[in-house]
């Protein structure tokens, strides 16, 4: 197993954001993490990437406990993350932004820049290299976020809502990019609200609600899970929908 978490719990004061959440991400897969707003998905990501120390539980990387490692150490191991609220280096241009990522595996400046150019090309930023990060469109910033993470040459890519805020045609454009990244051997674990993308990309999906893992399985099976439907639409929703279906039949 490439990545797994064992009964991760994260408390902030009296609030339990993540409650004994366990999951496994298989090497070479695209795995999804969905759930209603405020379910604790981003918190769980932050724990996996090392930005938060969990109150309880463990993060395992290829079977090894990495709970105590700092974010930059995890990046060196091959775990890269993007941020839900994009965090570009505002004062730098696109190429410089991506080069910070590629320096991780290429200490020499020339090689790092060459790598950054290649990555920019791959995510469709080839023409915006000289543009200031602060002047990019929303879609451009999302691609930059993706490119920077990719430039660290990760084994596992944690994508936190990279599709949020994009219009349908932009989403259509970026889905093949994500699939191509996986086909090149990068495992992907993504938080996503756009269900069309989840159904389209993910082989396995975890559902987090109020900090607890309430379901796992293929996208189709998870979507029909009564517990999941209730988590999204409220108590009793599953039966109501089932009745509705019955009435039409």
């Amino acid at each position: 197993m490439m990545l797994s978490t064992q009964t991760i719990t994260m408390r902030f004061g009296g609030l339990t954001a993540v409650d004994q959440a366990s999951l496994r991400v298989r090497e070479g897969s695209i795995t999804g993490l969905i759930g209603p707003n405020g379910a604790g998905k981003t918190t769980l990501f932050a724990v996996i990437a090392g930005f938060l120390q969990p109150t309880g539980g463990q993060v395992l990387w290829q079977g090894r406990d990495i709970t105590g490692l700092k974010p930059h150490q995890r990046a060196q191991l091959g775990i890269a993350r993007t941020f839900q609220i994009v965090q570009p280096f505002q004062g730098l241009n696109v190429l410089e932004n991506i080069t910070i990522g590629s320096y991780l595996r290429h200490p020499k400046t020339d090689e790092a820049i060459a790598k950054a150019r290649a990555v920019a090309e791959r995510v469709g930023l080839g023409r915006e290299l000289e543009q200031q990060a602060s002047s990019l469109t929303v879609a451009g910033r999302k691609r930059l976020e993706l490119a920077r993470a990719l430039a660290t040459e990760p084994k596992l890519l944690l994508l936190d809502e990279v599709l949020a805020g994009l219009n349908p045609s932009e989403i259509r454009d970026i889905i093949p990019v994500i699939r191509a990244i996986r086909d090149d051997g990068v495992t992907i674990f993504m938080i996503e609200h756009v269900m069309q993308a989840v159904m389209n990309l993910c082989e396995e999906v975890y559902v987090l609600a109020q900090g607890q893992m309430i379901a796992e399985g293929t996208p189709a099976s998870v979507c029909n899970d009564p517990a999941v439907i209730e988590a999204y639409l409220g108590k009793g929703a599953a039966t109501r929908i089932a009745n509705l279906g019955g009435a039409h039949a």
Partner: protein
Amino acid sequence: MRINGYIPIILVTAALAVVPLVSSSNTLFNFMVMSLIITLAAQGWNILGGVAGQTSFGHALFFGVGCYTAAMLQFHFGVNAWVAFFLALLAGAAAGFILGFLSFRAGLRGSYFALITLAFAELMRILANASEWTGGAAGLLLKLDPGLANMQFESRASFLWLALAFVFVGLVISRAIAGSRFGAHLVAVRENEDAARALGVDVLSVKLKAISLSGAMTAAAGVLYVQNFLYIDANIGFGVWISVEALLAPLVGGRGLVLGPLIGTFTLHGLGELTKSFAGRIPGIDLMVFAVVLIGVVAFASGGVLGLLRRFAPRLARRIAV
């Protein structure tokens, strides 16, 4: 390493080096020596405050550590001036490391970091003012004994060249950093620490390297000061004046840029001398001008002189790679 980036540095240094050959004005030499000493202190500030974005209000700490390490080693133990110089560099780096270790580990940033640097500098000023070892309020006076071995020179021109050589080394170091992974990491830390972390940058270690290097460079300026004036006291070594000078120059010249401190220092002190020649010897008048320039730069030209150059003469700016 591309040589192109170094050409402006070599040209500027050569131009300054020619001055003693075409002029023999002592006033001019004194002006230049003082400006070069401040430039070196400001180059140290620029690594930490400019490139890495950690604004320090207390670089007097490092300047003073440099001054007193060099002066005390020579005064009390008769250590050779050059040996004392290298030990002063080490002491400056160590002071930087300790200050950084304490404050960065405690998570101090922005205004809080500025305040604690100031507090450390003031603490050292009080200690240096009260301790017998440092000569107390009377300060330390070094023996006049000109000679290369003692880092003292009879001719003003020679000392000017020495100071210029130090500044040149500072420029080369700054330029090398600007084109390196370390430089990119400094900038990443300045722009967004969380994003830097996510990309595998060890933020604490980068900051510690920056502040140690910064401390060593500003300490070197302190040594130059002592070797030039052969005197040091607490209000000079750890005084607020040098903290302000070290910070003003890079801001005015171009924050975080290789030539920023040099251009800033000469711009400011050139303006200061100009003001004095118009307004007469009114005390403080040059510093009033500095203050207005600082506010003006922050309000209207955050890139400083080099930023203006970039805006109004982009081709020239590109050629000198600012």
